[in-house]
Each structure stands twice: as C-alpha cells, then as structure tokens.
C-alpha cells in the first residue's frame, strides 16, 4: 500500500491480506450463518436415542428418515402445508394486484394527496404488530372470521401491501414513461398502454415482489397462532405444537423445519437478484 508495489514482499503481503481479510472471515461467517441449518438437518436424521445421547453426535451412524415419515403419517403435516399454501397464495394475489395499481398511480401521476399517502405507506411499519393484532383479533371474532383463513389473509395484507406498493413504485420509476407515451401517441388509451406495455415489462419485478409476499405469509407466526384452530393451522403454528407438555420432539420439529424452508429457499434463489435490487434501491440512493 505504501509505494512498494513490486517485489516478493508486497506479493506475499497481498496474499496474506487476501487470506486474512477475505477467506478467514468469509469461512467464519459462513460457518456461523449456516451451521444452525446443518444442525437442524442432522437432528432430523437422528433416531430418538441418538437425539438424547449424552455424547453429542455430529453425524448419525444410521441416518434415518423416520422423523419425516412420522411427520407426514401420524402428524399429517400435509394438512398445515396445504393451509399455509392457501393463505400465502391468496395473500400474494390480492396484495400484488392491489399494489400494482397503486404503484402505477404513484409512479405515473402527480395528484393532490400523493405525498401524504406515499409517506403513510412508507411509515406503515411504524405501527407495532401487536397494536394491529389486538383490534384485528376482536374484529375478526365479532365478524365470525376467527379461525377462517380469510382472517390471516386480511391480517397479512397490513404489512404485505405497504411493502409491495413501495417496492413496485421503485421498479416502475425505473421504467421509462416514454414507452407508454409512444403507445398512446399511436392511439392506445391509458389502460391499453398499461396492459400491453407496462405490465409485460413489470412482470419479472412483480414475480420478485410476489416471492417476498409469499415468504412473509408462509413464515408468519404471531398472527397465525391466535387466528387459527386445529383445522386451519399453518406450518409455523404446527411446528410450535410439536413442543409438547412432556417434552419437545426435536426430530419432528427439525424435519418439519427443513421441509418448510426448502420451497422458500428455492423461490428465493430465483427471485433474489431482482428482489435485492428493488430492496436496496430505496435505501441506497441519495
């Protein structure tokens, strides 16, 4: 760094620098961030006696899928999976369609009340989850929606919609308005311009936003535990239910955890580039 750019000494220094400033911290970070997943997976392959052996076992002698078969057999894990899927899909569809229209308005029009509304959407996350949870619970109860998947869908829109509006407005602002203007000069009306020009271009961004909404609703616990019963229970609640009075069934919990995380991870890997770009654009600018 201090002028001696050539020679063995600086080359050695560079190599050492790369080891200590890149590889060592990188390996430590990855070990820290990923070890819990390894441990979850290993636990799910253990037989009950290995789980509670006094010597901690880092890889089971006979990896077994017994926990998985119990989970789907005795514990009928497909049922909560189906519930979660229904809630997540409906939440995603509603949030996406409503938010896309709103984002288009925010991005393409200047109108009275735009600024306060934008700020309201941006600061929506200031409202504590518990502050919304309490009245939503009493309202759903009065309307007879408690334990109905609709109560979860409605509750989840409280945080998925503001977030999607924010994300989609950002994406739309990056799409040049000239495209629609050109179409409109050619005789298309605004709705046609939106459907034929904007929507196809926005579709990948909508998919990324959709993945995020799906993830949030798939993972949500705080509302779900109060708003569901045995028939409408979602995955996070079912996982917690395996913490029993007599002890915790760690093999089943970890097996369920692995199954829960896999679909989300797959979706996330496909969407992550665009999602990350959208997420960071807002915070990084300026």
């Amino acid at each position, binding site marked *: 760094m201090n002028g001696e750019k050539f020679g063995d000494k600086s080359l050695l220094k560079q190599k050492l620098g790369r080891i200590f400033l890149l590889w060592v911290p990188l390996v430590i970070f990855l070990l820290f961030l990923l070890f819990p997943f390894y441990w979850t997976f290993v636990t799910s392959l253990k037989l009950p006696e290995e789980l509670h052996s006094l010597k901690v076992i880092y890889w089971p002698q006979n990896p077994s899928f017994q926990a998985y078969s119990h989970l789907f057999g005795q514990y009928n894990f497909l049922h909560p999976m189906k519930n979660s899927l229904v809630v997540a899909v409906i939440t995603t569809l509603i949030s996406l369609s409503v938010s896309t229209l709103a984002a288009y308005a925010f991005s*393409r029009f200047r109108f009275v009340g735009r600024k306060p509304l934008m700020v309201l959407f941006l600061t929506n996350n200031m409202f504590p989850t518990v502050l919304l949870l309490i009245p939503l619970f009493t309202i759903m109860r009065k309307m007879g929606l408690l334990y109905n998947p609709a109560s979860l869908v409605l509750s989840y829109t409280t945080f998925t919609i503001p977030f999607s509006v924010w994300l989609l407005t950002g994406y739309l602002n990056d799409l040049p308005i000239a495209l629609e203007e050109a179409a409109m000069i050619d005789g298309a009306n605004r709705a046609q311009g939106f459907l034929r020009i904007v929507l196809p271009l926005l579709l990948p961004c909508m998919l990324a936003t959709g993945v995020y909404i799906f993830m949030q609703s798939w993972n949500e616990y705080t509302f779900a535990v109060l708003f569901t019963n045995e028939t409408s229970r979602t995955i996070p609640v079912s996982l917690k239910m395996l913490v029993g009075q007599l002890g915790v069934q760690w093999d089943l919990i970890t097996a369920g955890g692995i199954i829960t995380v896999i679909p989300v991870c797959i979706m996330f890997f496909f969407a992550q580039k665009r999602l990350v770009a959208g997420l960071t654009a807002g915070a990084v600018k300026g």
Partner: protein
Amino acid sequence: MDIRRRPREKSTIWPYLLLLPVLIVMLSVVIVPIINAVSMSFQSYNLTKPKKIGYIGLQNYATLLHDPLFWSSLLRTAIWVVFGVGCQFLFGFLLALVLNKQFKGRGVVRAVSLIPWVTPGVLIALMWRWMYDGNYGVINDLLMRLGLIKENIAFLSKPGTAMPSVIVTIVWQGIPFFALMLLAGLQGISYDLYEAASIDGATGWQKLIYVTIPSLRNTIFVTTMLRIIWVANSVDVIFNMTEGGPAYATQTLSVYIYKKASALDMGYASAMAIMLMLVLLLAAIPYLRNTFRDQEG
C-alpha cells in the same frame, strides 16, 4: 430522478381510481383497527370477563404507569434493540466488506448467506433453543471441546444468560439483511474516491473511515432505522425461545403485550401497544423526517 421530475398528467380521476382498492383495504385492515385499539385502550376490555367491558377513561394508562413489569419490559426492549441491532450492524458491515471483494463463487455465497433472513421466526427460535439445550445442546458441546466451559450451561433457563442468548439469535437472523443493504451501498461508491485516497497515501483503515463510511451514511441510517423498528416489534423469536422467561429476564414490551393479548386482556394490551407505538415514533422522528423530505409532492 429526472424522470420523476417530469410533469405528469394532472387533475384526472385516474390516480384516485387506481388507488381506490388499496385505500379500501388499508382503511379496513389498518386505520379502522387502530382507531379500534385506541378506543379499547380506554375500556376495561377483557374477553374473559365480558360483563365488565366498558369505558373506564384513563384507568389502563394509570395502571400501566404503576406497573413495574411495563417499565422493566420497556428497559429490556431498549437492551434488546441496542445490542441486537448494534451487533447486526457491526457484523453485517463486516460481512458486506468481505462480500464486496472479488472472488470466485461470490454470487452463490451472497445468496446462501441470506438464508437466515428467509427462515421463519418460529423455526429460528426452535432451532436455537435446541442448540442451546442444557443437556444435549451442541453449543455446550462445542464450547466444552474448545475448553471454554467446564460444565454444561442451561443458557435459556438462567436469567443471566437468557438475554444474551436470545440476542445472539436475533443477531444471527439480522446479519444478512444489513450485509445485503450495505453491500449494495458499497457497490455504489465510485472507485475514483478510493483511487484519490490512495494517491494521498491513505491506508486501508483510513479509506474505511474517510471514504467508505461517509459514503454509506444514508444506507446505514435507513437500514438501521428499519431494523430498530423491526426488532423492537418482533415477538416470535423470544416468545418461542423463552416465552419471556426465566423470571421475565427476556420479556420485551412486545412480548409482554403479546402475552396480555393472548390472555385476552385487550384493553390493557391496547394501552401498552399505543405506548410502544409512541416510543417508536419518538425514536424514529429523524427517519420520518427523512422519508417525508425524500418524497416530492
């Protein structure tokens, strides 16, 4: 920016029509419920005592001011947020600096290191609870092998270790988000700035202090604010690790409110939730001001 400054159509009904669905939904799931919560906070509203439901003025707020658990939970929220978000920032920043270097497989590493962020809070809580286990936990085993401890520690059932343990978990969960945001910020810094600093003879450390951190100011500010709000509100991790115990050692205000709401004492829970919102609003004034300034009318 220049695109957005362009004059758009004015005085048409279109934007309002487009916003109508979102406004209807938000009105019914956010605005009305919050008004409802405010009203409940002035009532005795315990669903297990339905006959006693009715307005009691400021009684809930008076109770809250004299509730030592409210104040201690508020203090624990502060500890939870300061240490939780502080360490998330520190380690997230370090990870971002590492990921900002060129190396093979960087894209994959970046994506993989984000996995904790997409993992359900309950699962995170349960995974860590199992790793912290006092009898069969892997963390005890690892620390023992490293010679750092002599006998197993029941991390989550001792008041002294419970809070640090749940904080480690929330830090683990939050590192990826910070790293992601700061990495995007790092990649936006012009290389010229570093070049100029090099010519002036700056060391790597000086570049970090005088170039990197000032350039990231806005990203750090916005991300930290978002995380503070998020961590202060989070219930699922603590609740599923310790339920706020042992002896309230990990009970933050959000967890306390959640427990009151689960016990169906909605009036008192609402009053506390409104206090939590006011505290958060106060803490986030600079963020709100920033947001308001950024949105041109």
